[in-house]
């Protein structure tokens, strides 16, 4: 039995119910267009609910899903490769959660401090967080990269990047 699959199945089941619920106040089909805006989403909600139940039941019965036995060295080889990416001991949750959190802060900071300052700060902190210890190289790379992105997008492509509160 695989508990993570059962939890995912329950979340998807709840999601499909919520999605279906949202279709209920859509207007009914018109005279010329007989399916209306709600039909296709409602159909998808049904299919997703069915598949989520299948996922839950498959795992409750601790049996392998039928698609597993595609067999052959080819698929096996490709699968083993995929699994390598997630050999549990090698995953650092500090690096992972740190990168995700920093990225969210970065995007929020862009609207406050503008593109240039936030990008330099983000790069310096993320590069340090991921374990790079040479400060001089770090700052040089962060400033250089920000300048390169600014030149490419703002100067060459003419995109108006957010300037932030200090430059407005």
């Amino acid at each position, binding site marked *: 039995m695989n508990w993570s699959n059962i939890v995912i199945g329950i979340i998807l089941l709840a999601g499909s119910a919520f999605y279906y619920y949202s279709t209920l106040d859509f207007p009914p089909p018109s005279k010329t267009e007989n399916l209306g805006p709600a039909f296709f989403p409602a159909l998808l909600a049904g299919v997703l609910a069915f598949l989520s139940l299948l996922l839950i039941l498959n795992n409750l019965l601790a049996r392998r899903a039928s698609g597993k036995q595609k067999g052959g060295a080819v698929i096996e080889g490709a699968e083993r490769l995929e699994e390598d990416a997630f050999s549990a001991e090698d995953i650092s949750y500090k690096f992972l959660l740190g990168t995700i959190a920093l990225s969210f802060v970065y995007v929020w900071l862009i609207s406050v401090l503008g593109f240039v300052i936030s990008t330099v700060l983000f790069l310096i902190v993320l590069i340090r967080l*991921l374990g790079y210890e040479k400060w001089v190289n770090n700052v040089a790379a962060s400033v250089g990269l920000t300048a390169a992105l600014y030149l490419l997008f703002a100067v060459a492509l003419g995109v108006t990047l957010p300037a932030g509160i200090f430059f407005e």
Partner: protein
Amino acid sequence: MLHNFMLGASVAFSPTSLLFILFGVLWGILGGALPGITGSIAMALLLPLTFSMAPSVALMMLAGVYIGAMYGSSITAILIRTPGAPASAATIFDGYELHKQGRSGVALGISLYTGTIGGLFSVVVLIALAVPLANFALAFGPPEYFGMTVFGLAIISSLAGKSMVKGLISGVVGLILATVGMDPFSGIPRFTYGSEELLGGIDLIAAMIGLFAVSEVFIQAAEKGSWAKVDEAFASKLPTWVELKSTWRATTLGTVIGTIVGIMPGAGGTIGGFIAYNEGKRWSRTPEQFGKGSLEGVAAPESANNAVTGGAMVPLLAFGIPGSNAAAIMLGALMLQGLRPGPMLFQNSPDIVYSLFVGMIIANVFMLVTGYIFIKPCIKIVNISKPILMASIMALVTVGCYAINNNINDVWIALILGVVGYLMRKYDFSPSAMVLAMILGFMVETSLRRSLVISYGSISCFYTRPIALVLIILALVTLFFPIIRAIRDERNGVKNSGPAA
């Protein structure tokens, strides 16, 4: 047709086009060589830059990236036993072995030469197939398109995940995400929950960048340790003509297998490479050399993964249906310019389609010419520390997503879908199936509803039109065959409890 080729060539041979194709090839080789950065990620990173380009130039550049990356990924596969992208995973068996024997240049050269052969052959097949298929597809009405898209999605989703249920769930969630925004028929907002930003739907380009590139940055960040350093001083002696000729059997097999696999939706360079390696071994005169530094062991997967590039463009150009991540990104680049691939593109803008044909040939030639010289600069960049590279990609992604519509919300979408993509890959769901379903979702729903408008509400249009009927039956067979097979195997007493042998 000849006229169209002249038109395409005149676009493709303009200095701007040549420059961007060259840039695309080099960017692709580099992206391919970087562990974790696949061809489609390298393409997705350039996608925001294409909005200011002519559509033909954008497509040729992206095709160049795709082609270059297929070769680039063999560089790190051979030199540090880490495939730059899964497409070259089968190359490590013999490529790294050759490197250890001091024949690195021979392995890299075989990869480059056979890759070029595979790539060029697949473009010829692409031209031979796409033009008549597109003419055939001109007769398609909404019921045929409905059957086609459902069939495509059924193959993609059932091939995508390790378990078929998870692949299908990924596809259905993609279809669900595609329904967010203004309903194309009634004009009412659906699933926007009061947000004005969501009225236009979830931006596809931001979604692709998030699911492909951002999720990969998170995966790389979570991995402890750095990549192995690549030694710049490798034996650089190139293969001789005799050595290249000795691989003809494997190269031919790889080229044909790669082209066919490329045409099939849902299968790509990774599967093509592995099948070609196995078949190359089976048909080789010296199968015992495989795994011990066989040149054929490099030629088979490397000709195959480059041959995938032409094949993958067939369903995209002929029917407007992308079968792989790379094709999805090419479609994204066209949609950014308000165009849609498919038979109408051949009619209305033959210059775009035919310049892509010519551009892909040019890209293969550029790869052949620059591929060997560019190895050294590539190694220098791969040797830059991983934290700096990952942080750079994150910043590039952020500014790129912002640039698509000058809108910070697209960056949020990319970031959130990056987290979703990470979780999906961790729990064996398929971000590719989700993206392809997001792209096809609009087409599935509109073709279904339009079919019923045309037939005044009668579903007979799906079974009285032969092409539509065949496509729908194929879709049903794809979806139900694995279940039927599972039941049959169980009856025959095959135990499913262990992994398949």
